[in-house]
Each structure stands twice: as structure tokens, then as C-alpha cells.
């Protein structure tokens, strides 16, 4: 659905995108992840035909950019960052205008607008003036606009930015629902969003792709996660013994409650030390009341990949 090779965007001030290559297959929901200013929006703008690339090859929805820009634009639905809309128009009127502009036929327009109003939960506000809507509703209007011509690919630039937690939740549900029958590329710097909605993430930093993989694989790339145990033992010797396990990198004492001490035991990247730690506890016959592994989260992957 999207094929990008060696994409470069240079501005007078510098390079925003420095030779990125990636692809998105039909039916995927892919998260485009990166800190602010990483080049996410610039890349998305190039994918939608808004910005011409300095160099590189782009193919979106079966058409080449920038040569077949009109064709691409007709096949994709794009929701720009901050969702710019015409404030003086009414919701329904706006969607009709946008639908007609995106070549929905006169016969279909009422049906299509009704459908996306319903899909995006806008039916109750369809006669309202856009300028009077709350941020959450405006965001929905933006999404309805992206959907109105029934595109095969949705490109959403930070679709949940600026929403309150309730709105974010319902918006994600909506995106999840939409992802069932179309391809979606969405950018965000909120990691939990990717974890909830996407099957794959592309992590971009300073105009370069740092990683592109399924979430499960990405998580494997960093430390397997720290082990937390709470035992009854002599603090100093327990710490020493834990530290002697071959693949343990750090042992940290977290807190004490009476005789109980809890430790955080961190393993070297990619190593599983659960067996060894369990063996030690049994050998030493320490009473044990907690044994828990923190799962590596996408956040750790993200921080590790995008730090300087």
C-alpha cells in the first residue's frame, strides 16, 4: 500500500528526512512513532502529495508520487495535524463539500456523508457550525473528512493530540474499528496509543528510521525486563549472591518492610534469569512472597532507540 525508498526532504535550514525506506502492506495498521520534530509530519505530508520530496521514490495506493499526485490524493484519506477545518461551515455541509471535492458522485454524497457521520458519532451535531464544536468533535469531523470518499488508505497525523482521556479512548476504539477493513498509517508520540491500536511500529528519530517491526519483536530488542522479588534474607549477602548470577547486570534494593526486603534484579539485554534466581532462592531457602517480571514496554524501546 505504501512503498518508500530512500526518501529525503531537505529544507533551506537543514534536512528533515534523511533517506528513509519502509513499506506498509495492505490491511496493516502501522504506528509511525517518534519524538517531536523527528520528521513524522514531513514524511506524512510527502506521502499525501502535499510536499514534494527532495529525492527518493514514493508509491502510495498503487500510484507514484509526485507524478500521479491527483490519483494518490483521491485514493487516500488524510487527517493533518491539528485538524484544520473551515470554522464557518456546518458539519454536514463541510463533509458534503469535501466529499464532492474528492469526487464522490452527486448520487452517493448523501449516503456517504450519512455513513461517516454515523461512523464518527457526529449525527447529533451535524447541523452545528464547526467553529462552535469542542476539540473532540472537531477531531471527529477531521476523521470523517478523511473517510468521506471511502479511501483504501488512511493517513492520520497525531489523531489524538489535544484530546482528553475519554475522547482519546473513544477515538482509539474508532480507529481500531476502522483498521479492520482498511490500511492505516498513524503518527503519534504517545506510545500507549501504538500499543493499543497498531500491529507494527516504525520508529523514526532525527529523520532516520531506527526500527520497524511488530510490537512483540521490538520489545524483545531491549532488556527482557527487570525481575522483582521480595524475600526474607540478610540484605547484604542476598544482594551479593544475586549479583553473582552470571547474566545479572544490576541488583537494586527497593525497600524493606520488617524482615522482608525487595530487590530489583536486572538482566543483560535479551537474557532470561528467572530460572537462576529461582534456583538461588531455593538453595538459600529464603522465604519468598513476591516474584514478578516487569514486561519490557514499548516505552523502553522508544527511549532506548531515540536517545542521543
Amino acid at each position: 500500500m505504501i512503498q518508500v525508498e530512500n526518501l529525503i526532504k531537505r529544507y533551506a535550514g537543514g534536512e528533515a528526512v534523511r533517506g528513509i525506506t519502509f513499506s506498509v502492506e495492505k490491511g496493516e495498521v502501522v504506528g509511525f512513532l517518534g519524538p517531536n520534530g523527528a520528521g513524522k509530519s514531513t514524511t506524512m505530508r510527502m506521502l499525501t502529495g502535499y510536499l514534494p520530496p527532495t529525492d527518493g521514490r514514493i508509491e502510495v495506493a498503487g500510484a507514484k508520487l509526485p507524478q500521479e499526485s491527483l490519483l494518490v490524493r483521491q485514493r487516500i484519506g488524510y487527517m493533518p495535524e491539528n485538524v484544520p477545518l473551515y470554522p464557518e461551515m456546518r458539519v454536514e455541509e463541510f463533509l458534503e463539500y469535501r466529499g464532492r471535492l474528492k469526487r464522490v458522485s452527486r448520487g452517493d454524497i448523501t449516503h456517504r456523508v450519512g455513513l461517516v457521520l454515523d461512523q464518527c458519532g457526529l449525527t447529533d451535531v451535524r447541523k452545528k457550525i464547526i467553529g462552535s464544536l469542542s476539540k473532540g468533535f472537531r477531531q471527529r469531523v477531521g476523521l470523517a473528512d478523511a473517510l468521506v470518499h471511502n479511501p483504501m488508505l488512511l493517513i492520520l497525523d497525531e489523531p489524538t493530540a489535544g484530546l482528553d482521556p475519554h475522547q482519546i479512548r473513544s477515538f482509539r476504539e474508532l480507529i481500531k474499528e476502522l483498521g479492520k477493513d482498511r490500511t492505516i498509517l498513524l503518527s503519534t508520540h504517545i506510545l500507549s496509543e501504538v500499543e493499543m491500536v497498531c500491529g507494527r511500529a516504525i520508529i523514526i528519530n532525527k529523520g532516520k528510521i531506527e526500527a520497524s517491526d511488530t510490537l512483540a519483536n521490538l520489545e524483545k530488542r531491549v532488556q527482557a525486563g527487570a525481575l522483582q522479588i521480595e524475600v526474607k534474607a540478610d540484605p547484604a549477602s542476598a544482594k551479593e549472591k544475586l549479583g553473582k548470577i552470571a547474566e545479572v547486570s544490576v541488583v537494586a534494593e527497593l525497600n524493606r518492610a520488617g524482615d522482608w526486603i525487595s530487590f530489583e534484579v536486572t538482566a543483560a539485554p535479551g537474557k532470561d534469569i528467572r530460572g537462576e534466581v529461582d534456583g538461588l532462592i531455593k538453595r538459600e531457602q529464603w522465604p519468598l512472597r513476591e516474584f514478578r517480571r516487569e514486561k519490557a514496554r514499548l516505552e523502553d524501546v522508544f527511549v532506548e532507540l531515540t536517545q542521543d
Partner: protein
Amino acid sequence: MTRALWILWKREVGAILHSPIAWVLLTCMSLINGFSFSQCVAYLGQGVKEFTVMQIYFYIFHFWFLLIILVPILTMRLFSEEYKTGTIEMLLTAPVKDGDVILAKFFGVLFFYLLLWIPSLLGLAIFQLVTHQAVPVAWIPLGFSYLMVTLVGMLYLSIGLFASVLTRNQAVAAMISFTMIALLFFAGFLSYLVRDPGWREVLNYIFTLEQMRSFSAGLFDSRPVVFYLSGTAFFLILTRQVMTGRRLNG
């Protein structure tokens, strides 16, 4: 007219008619038009004159002052606002050509501009009614006059549109177009001062006031028509170039 152009044009006209500026302008135009028209009539009443009331109307200061002030106010928001609020991105990621967007804005604002001159015709209608058609309306000079109003308007509006695509600040856009239009308008007067016949020829070619005088007297000249149409095309093309350039720079 392509389908996209028609859809975009409707939205442009809608946006203009939904803005308070439009109605304030229409009111102010009617007021100033009425004032200037009554002055023309008062002048006619001073004795026998060889002009029709419309000839005077299109020649006096009020008319030109309005024209020069009016256009920057009409055009300043056309692109500036879209760039400032980011709606330009939404607009240009729809399957429409840049050229259609520019033409839609141009014809949309031209439509409203022409609407603004309707009160001046009302003045004439009242004049005819009150004087019991003492002098019949000279239709051909009247038609030429409004043709000239349209042609001059087209050039000025295209200059305003060009200024608007240069900046996201409406006030800056208005100042740029006001300056360009005023310079173009007043340059014509230099033909009174210049001795060199070649330069005088050139300056006469762009001397809007004199052209209007001959058109309102019913004398048609094709040179101004060519000048205003090609000038309009020039600024519309320039607008397109700037739009493309702005995208290259993100």
C-alpha cells in the same frame, strides 16, 4: 469550468458571504456610493454640463478611492487565512489542481466584487426615476463603464490574490496589495509630467483614469482590454508559482 472549480467556487463565495467583512463592506460601499452619487447630481444641477451623471461618477475621486481601498480588504484573507489556519494543507491534499484552487478564489472574489457595484446602479435607477427620464440612459457607455470596472477589478484582485499568497499575515497582505495597486494607479498620472513621448505612450497605456474616462464616454479601445486581461493572467500565474515554491520549502 471543471467540476472541482465549480465546487471550490461555491465554497469561496459561501466563505465570503459568511464573513462579517462582506456585509460591512457592502453597507459602507452603499453609503459612500450614495454620497458620491448625490455629489455628482449636485454638480450636474449647477448648470448645463456635457457629461452624463455616470461619466462624472466614474471619474470622481470617491470612485477610485473606493476601488483602491476595497480590493486589498477583499483579497487579504484569501490565501493568508488558509496558510495561517493550516486549511491549505487540507485543501491541497484533496484531488484538486493548484490552478483550480487559485481560479476558484479569483472568480469567487470577483463575483463579490461585482456584487459590490450594484448599489451604484441603484443610484442611477433612482436618478432616472426622480428626473422622470429627462435624459435617457446611455446604455452603451454604461456597459463600457462597467466592463472597465470589471477589467480593472480583475487586475487589482489578481494583485491582491498574489499578495495574499505571499504571507500568512492578513494585514501584511493588505499592505502589499494596497501599495502595488496604488503605485500602478498613480503611475498613470506621470504621463502629465513626462516629456519623452515614448514614456508617455507607455504611461498612457496603464493610465486607468483616462481609460475609464473614454470608456464611460462610450469610446471603446481594445488596448486596455488586452492590458488588464494579460496583467490578470500574469499575476494569477505568479500566484501559482509562489504556491508551488511555498510547498518546496515546506
